[in-house]
C-alpha cells in the first residue's frame, strides 16, 4: 500500500516537473493561492484598486501563484466574499480598502488559521497584517509641486469621500503648498460623504470647474474614479490636475502634471512573495517615502510639464522629509490629539 502510494507520488511529481519545464514556471508553486477582495471602485478604477490588481497580476506572472480577484458592489458585500475565500482555504487573503476593516476583524477571528492582509486601515489580530502608506509625506511633495507650478497663486484639492484617510492627503498637501509658498491659497472640495463619492466623475468635473473658475490652475485630486471628471475639466479648461494612487499621467497627457503614487502594487506583490516563502508578519507594515512606498510619478507623459528646477527642489524636499528635517503633519496624529 505504502509503496503503491509512493510510486504514484513519484509519478505525479515527475509529471509536474515536466510540465514545469514546458511552461517555464514551477507548477508545484502554483498551489499557493491568493484571494483579493477589492472595494467599491473595482479593478478598473485606474487608481487605488487598479494598483492592487496590478500587484496581483504581477505576482501571478512572476511567482506563479494562483490569484482570485473579487470586487464588491457595495460595502456590505466584502464580508461574505472574505469569508468564502477563507472557507475555500486560500493561503493569503487581501482586503483592499479602509471600508473592509470591520469585515476583516470579524472574519479573521472566525478563521484563525488563515492569513489576512488589510490595506489602508488597521486591525489588531495575530493573523492580520495591516498595510499603511505614509500618504501625507508624498502629499507634501505634491503640494510643493502644485504651488511651484501655479501661476495664479491658487491651487485646489478635490477629495473623494470625506474620511480621515483623505483628510490626511489634504493636510499633507496644504503643508506642502504653504511650505514652499506661504501666500498660496488652497481651495478644498469633497465629492461627498458616501461610498458613491469614489464613482462620480460628473461631480468631480463640476467641482474642478468650480475651482478653476475661481482662479485655481492646479488641482490635486484624491477621489478614485471621480478623478476622471477632474481630468476632463482640466482638459476642457486647459489647466492642470494631479492624479492619485496609480500613475494617472497617461490618462490626459499634457494636463496631468503628475500623480501621487501609492505603491499598493508593490506592497501586494511583496507580501505575496514573502507568503509564498512561508513568511507572514502580522501587525502594521508601513510604506513611506524612504522605501518608495509612496512617491510622485515622472514619465514620458509629464516630463515636459516639469522643469528641472522644480524637480531639483522636490528632490531636496524629499531628502529632508526622509531625514526628518521636515515634519509633515499627519492627520491621524493631529485628529487623535484633538
Amino acid at each position, binding site marked *: 500500500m505504502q509503496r503503491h502510494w509512493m510510486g504514484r507520488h513519484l509519478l505525479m511529481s515527475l509529471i509536474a516537473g515536466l510540465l514545469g519545464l514546458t511552461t517555464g514556471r514551477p507548477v508545484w508553486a502554483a498551489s499557493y493561492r491568493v484571494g483579493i477582495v477589492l472595494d467599491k471602485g473595482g479593478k478598473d478604477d485606474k487608481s487605488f484598486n487598479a494598483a492592487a490588481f496590478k500587484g496581483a497580476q504581477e505576482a501571478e506572472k512572476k511567482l506563479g501563484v494562483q490569484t482570485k480577484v473579487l470586487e464588491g458592489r457595495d460595502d456590505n458585500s466584502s464580508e461574505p466574499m472574505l469569508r468564502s475565500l477563507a472557507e475555500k482555504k486560500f493561503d493569503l487573503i487581501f482586503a483592499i480598502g479602509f471600508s473592509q476593516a470591520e469585515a476583516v476583524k470579524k472574519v479573521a477571528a472566525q478563521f484563525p488559521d488563515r492569513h489576512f492582509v488589510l490595506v489602508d486601515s488597521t486591525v489588531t489580530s495575530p493573523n492580520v497584517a495591516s498595510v499603511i502608506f505614509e500618504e501625507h509625506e508624498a502629499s507634501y511633495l505634491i503640494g510643493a509641486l502644485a504651488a511651484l507650478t501655479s501661476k495664479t497663486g491658487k491651487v485646489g484639492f478635490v477629495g473623494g469621500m470625506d474620511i480621515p484617510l483623505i483628510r490626511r492627503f489634504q493636510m499633507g498637501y496644504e503643508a506642502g503648498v504653504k511650505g514652499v509658498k506661504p501666500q498660496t491659497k488652497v481651495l478644498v472640495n469633497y465629492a461627498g460623504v458616501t461610498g458613491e463619492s469614489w464613482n462620480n466623475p460628473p461631480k468631480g468635473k463640476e467641482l474642478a470647474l468650480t475651482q478653476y473658475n475661481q482662479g485655481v490652475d492646479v488641482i490635486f485630486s484624491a477621489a478614485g474614479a471621480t478623478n476622471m471628471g477632474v481630468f*476632463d475639466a482640466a482638459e476642457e479648461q486647459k489647466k492642470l490636475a494631479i492624479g492619485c494612487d496609480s500613475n494617472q499621467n497617461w490618462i490626459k497627457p499634457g494636463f496631468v502634471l503628475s500623480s501621487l503614487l501609492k505603491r499598493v502594487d508593490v506592497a501586494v506583490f511583496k507580501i505575496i512573495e514573502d507568503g509564498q516563502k512561508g513568511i507572514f508578519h502580522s501587525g502594521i507594515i508601513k510604506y513611506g517615502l524612504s522605501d518608495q512606498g509612496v512617491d510622485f510619478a515622472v514619465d514620458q507623459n509629464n516630463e515636459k510639464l516639469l522643469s528641472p528646477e522644480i524637480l531639483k527642489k522636490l528632490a531636496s524636499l524629499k531628502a529632508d522629509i526622509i531625514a526628518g528635517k521636515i515634519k509633515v503633519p499627519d492627520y491621524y496624529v493631529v485628529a487623535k490629539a484633538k
Partner: protein
Amino acid sequence: MLEYLLDLAAATLRLSTPLIFAAMGGLISERSGVINIALEGKMVVGAFAAAVVTLSTGSPWVGLIGGGLAGVLLAALYGVAVLPLKANQIVAGTGINMLAFGIPPFVAKILYDVTGSTPAISLAERFSVAPMVLAVFLPLVIWSFLSHTRGGLWLQFAGEHPSALAAAGVNVRRIRWASVLTAGFLAGVGGATLSIFLSSAYSRNMTSGRGFIALAALILGKWRPLPVLFACLFFGLADAVQMRLQGIQMDGFGKVPVQFIQILPYMITIVVLAGFVGRSRAPRALGNS
C-alpha cells in the same frame, strides 16, 4: 459678481440636465398610470450604451440616441412584466434596477475586456452644450403635448380614469405601452448625458442615485412638466451652491462641515414636501394596471 452668477447658472443647468431628462421620462410614464422607479437603472444602461455607441461611431448624437434606445429595451422588459403580466410595479421596477447594474460590466467585459469603465471619449466627440438646451425645451414640448393634443389627453385619462377612456373606445394598454417606452428613451438619454456630456466615459455606477433624485423632483413638481423642470433646476442649484459653500467661513459658526452642506438639497426637499407645496397628488390610477 455677474461672472459668478453666470458661472453658477451654467453649473446649475449642467447638473440639472440628466435629472430633467429622467424626470420627464418618469412624468410621461406615471401620468399614464405606470409607476416608474426604474429610472436609475435606465440611466445606467443609457450612460453605458451612449459611451459605447459614441466610441464606435464617433458621433455624440448617434450616441445619445443609442443611450435612449438602450433605455427603451430595458423599459420594454419592464413593460412586459407590468402590463400584460400585471406584476407589482414597485417590485418589478426594483428588479429592473438591480438587473441594470449588472449589464454594463457584463457587456464591457465582452467589448473591452474590462468590467469597470469604457475607454475615454475624446473632447471633440463629446457634447459641450447641446443636451442642456434640449433639456430646457423638453418640458415645454411635453407640456404642450399633454395639454394641447388628443394623444396627451388620452395619456392623462389613462392615468386618471382608465375606464372612461376604455368606454370611449381607446385602448388604454396601448397608450401605457407607448408611455413606458418613451419614458425608457428619455431616462436613457438622461443617462447618456452623464457619459458623453458631463464626463468622458462610462464609469462604474456613475449615476450615483440621480434616478432617484429625478423621482423626488417628479413628486416635488406634482407630476406637472414645468413645475418638475423647476424642481430639477432647484436640485441642480442646491448642488451647485453647496459646491461653492464647502469650507467657507460663516460668522459665528466657524467652518461649515461638509456633511451639513451635502445634506442641504435633501433637507430642503423634505421641508418643502412637508409644508410648502401643499398636497402632492399622484395620478389617480397610478399603479393599477
